């Protein structure tokens, strides 16, 4: 069975087996590119149509929290990569430690996101019945601002959902690594979850400038 790191039926070498697993995850990540890409397309179109309102709305989001979150997430990618490396050189305790670090950083990210969402709630910037961006401005301005915030919540919400799924995967990995399951010969689950985690990080790397840095000068 492949779960024990032995050669599975249709594969000729272990390297081929490992590369196939990795390719499988990459192909899944390509479908995720399609998934997020659609929203980025919507964003691109709407921002080019309403650049001024989008700029105004973007300025109302807390830049400091967003920047901190970016650093936190890239840091979590670093700890994830360290975990993969540790599994490759056989340092089993480090694998667990780095996985836990990744989980902690990911949770910090989600916590800060929660704070940001709460801020938006208090400011009445959540699209829907209670939405109120600029009471004195035109209906069009408010409508376009609502468009921005719809995109903001949809895109960061989808991203946060992926983070939560990633956190669940990390928990599973931590449980397995504490049993000492990952060795230089068999560390595929760590590697694949690593790929997923890095992808979620890349999505945020693009989300951050596009949502937070529209018109700050």
């Amino acid at each position, binding site marked *: 069975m492949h779960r024990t790191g032995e050669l599975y039926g249709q594969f000729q070498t272990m390297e081929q087996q490992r590369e196939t697993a990795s*390719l499988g995850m990459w192909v899944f990540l390509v479908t995720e*590119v399609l998934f997020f890409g659609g929203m980025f397309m919507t964003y691109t179109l709407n921002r*080019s149509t309403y650049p001024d309102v989008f700029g105004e709305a973007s300025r109302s989001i807390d830049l400091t929290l967003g920047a901190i979150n970016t650093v936190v997430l890239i840091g979590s*990618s670093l700890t994830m990569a360290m975990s993969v490396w540790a599994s490759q050189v056989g340092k089993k305790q480090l694998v667990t430690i780095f996985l836990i670090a990744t989980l902690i950083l990911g949770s910090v990210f989600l916590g800060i996101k929660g704070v940001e969402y709460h801020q938006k709630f208090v400011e009445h910037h959540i699209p829907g019945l209670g939405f109120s961006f600029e009471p004195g401005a035109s209906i069009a301005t408010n409508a376009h601002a609502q468009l921005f915030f719809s995109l903001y919540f949809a895109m960061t919400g989808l991203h946060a959902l992926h983070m939560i799924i990633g956190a669940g995967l990390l928990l599973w990995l931590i449980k397995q690594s504490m049993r000492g399951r990952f060795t230089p010969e068999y560390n595929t689950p760590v590697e694949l979850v690593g790929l997923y985690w890095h992808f979620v*990080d890349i999505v945020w790397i693009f989300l951050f400038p596009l949502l937070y840095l*529209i018109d700050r000068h």
Partner: protein
Amino acid sequence: MLGTILTVYAATIDLNQYFSGLNIIVALVIATCKASLVVLFFMHGKYSPKRTQLVIVCSVFWLAIMLFMTMSDYLSRPWS
């Protein structure tokens, strides 16, 4: 790796200057560099077999086509 943390700082602080509408290009270039670093090194893209690298390039290509073609469709419409 710490360089990526520095680029976040650069992206936020340097946007205080007005680059005559080129802010977004700078921000996107920085973001693309960061993403490339993550793909190449964290995700071992540089050390992957050619087949995997092709898959990665294809997804970027697909994104480029979608963004470019859709935008040119919208921008070339005489009506709103």
